[in-house]
């Protein structure tokens, strides 16, 4: 099936457009290319993200969702790149009706040859010796801080998982800098509820994917998150709601 999709993308971009599939997520295919969409003088490294048509859902539902998410993601990327302290890929171009977005390339290859998202980074360190090192701690603190900055700017991510956070190593000191990606479900929101849910979704993602060390990981993430807040009153409210959402999950009555 993915061959069929790649053909479609190749056809859309033109026969000789150089692309390489680097990942196939649930929602999108991600390609790497060395070509800028319209300015040949800017040829460097770019990412093309393509949201294919999902055959399982009704055409109209799919059309609305694909467009909404593509447009939403572009908007978010633009807004966030102007925001102090947040690391996101740079937005280059898009075609919402067909589900395409161009953005700058971030991330690299880890020691074990996998892509440097937080999930693979944590899995690489998934043993008692490496799980609790200072390096891991710093990364998670910084990730938490990124989310905190996002929320204090009244944005929510909507799909926080360890695969949607990409790490990039700084040349000068080897420090890992986290970037947030995948803003298809993101948006502007002043609601405490949305932020609480955002944190809950992340906590659960860590719990299910990195279960062995999840408790400590979540603690560090939250610690970093708190650092981003100036206004302690806001923070208290979000954390309170987070606790409520969590309780709702646990105590949800399972009645028919």
């Amino acid at each position: 099936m993915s061959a069929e999709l790649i053909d479609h993308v190749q056809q859309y971009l033109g026969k000789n457009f150089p692309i390489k599939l680097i990942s196939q997520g649930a929602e999108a295919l991600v390609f790497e290319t060395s070509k800028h969409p319209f300015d040949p003088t800017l040829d460097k490294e770019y990412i093309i993200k393509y949201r294919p048509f999902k055959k399982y859902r009704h055409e109209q539902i799919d059309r609305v969702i694909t467009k909404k998410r593509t447009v939403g993601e572009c908007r978010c990327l633009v807004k966030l790149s102007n925001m102090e302290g947040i690391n996101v890929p740079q937005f280059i171009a898009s075609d919402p009706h067909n589900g395409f977005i161009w953005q700058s390339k971030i991330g690299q290859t880890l020691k074990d040859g996998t892509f440097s998202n937080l999930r693979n980074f944590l899995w690489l360190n998934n043993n008692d010796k490496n799980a609790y090192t200072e390096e891991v701690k710093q990364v998670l603190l910084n990730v938490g801080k990124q989310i905190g900055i996002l929320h204090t700017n009244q944005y929510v991510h909507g799909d926080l998982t360890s695969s949607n956070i990409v790490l990039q190593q700084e040349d000068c000191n080897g420090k890992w800098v986290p970037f947030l990606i995948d803003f298809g479900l993101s948006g502007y929101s002043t609601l405490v509820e949305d932020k609480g849910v955002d944190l809950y979704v992340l906590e659960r993602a860590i719990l299910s994917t990195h279960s062995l060390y999840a408790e400590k990981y979540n603690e560090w993430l939250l610690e970093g998150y708190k650092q981003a807040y100036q206004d302690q009153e806001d923070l208290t409210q979000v954390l309170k709601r987070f606790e409520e959402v969590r309780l709702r999950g646990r105590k949800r009555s399972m009645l028919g």
Partner: protein
Amino acid sequence: MLQPELQKVLPKNGKDYYICLGLEGSANKLGFGVIKQSLSDPLDTEVISNIRDTYNAPPGEGFMPRDTARHHKNWSCRILKQVIEECKEKLGQGFDIKKDIDCIAFTKGPGMGAPLHSVCVFARTLSLLHNIPLIPVNHCIGHIEMGRCITKGLNPVVLYVSGGNTQVIAYSNNRYRIFGETLDIAVGNCLDRFARILKISNSPSPGYNIEQLARKGKHLIELPYTVKGMDLSMSGILQYLEQLTKSFLSNGSKFSKQKKRKLLEYLNDTEMIDSVEITVEDLCFSFQEHLFAMLIEITERAMAHVGSDEVLIVGGVGCNLRLQEMMETMCKDRNGKMFATDDRFCIDNGVMIAQAGVLQYRYGYVLENLKDTRVTQTFRTDEVFVNWRE
């Protein structure tokens, strides 16, 4: 691969198989079942008997705990008698509870307190009467283990959809971990409540009747669609549809011209829109298409996240053929495989409780205090330590 510990407790009388009686009654279905599980392969299970009776509330109403509990109490003895008759037919006339049954499994939770408790009292009595070990089972684990029996040992992502639960589950490190779930109400509950507004019959089940109506639907109305990561929310879509349906019903089961134009705006053809009527069937169709698209989407997200390409659908809503069809399409596109079961095993039943119970039993579960059999309405899937899997 059989773990050696799985043989901790051997079958009675030197047999090479276990016989287990499973009792389920966490919601409006009372189901008793007996299975025969091979000693050498815990996934080699033969269903000896699987009998169920459903309590149906009148149209426009949901089932109340008290009435449901009364139903279970009234039917427990009768159903067990039928089960024993079937056991005698299949295992020989000499079949005897005391002599042949290795363990009795029952649902400890999650579910409605009163119905759960009725079945629990029944299970305790039977266990004490014949001195047969009693095994409390988590209802969700029952569904998953039954499904695993059908997929024969693969490690699929499980979509568990029923009246009270909506979860995307995958196994890792001795627990069934919940990757995604509903943030508010369950999908089955959502369907039931919609059926209640339209006064659709509760027999055989509201979901089944909606499915039949939806098949005749043609025009899609756009509804809210709320996915948050691997979780989803359904109260928004239900609320919106409730309002829409109420105005639909109060207007003589049709929409005003203006409303219709707005609802079908995306068709971009006013003349055509004016010539069609939106029907109850269309409402059901639109509702299902949206709800299920959300479910498939979070399942696909979980699959991509854990890197699995098999899916198993369990739970009452899992019988819905449209849901199965959509899942099948999604899996094909990922070069994966979909497994589903028919209504004998999808809808709550005793067999699945027996299957999960006997796994616990042969691994050495021993009830230390009768108080451990107390039922619980909230019992999360990931609370159970799954020591019978690697």
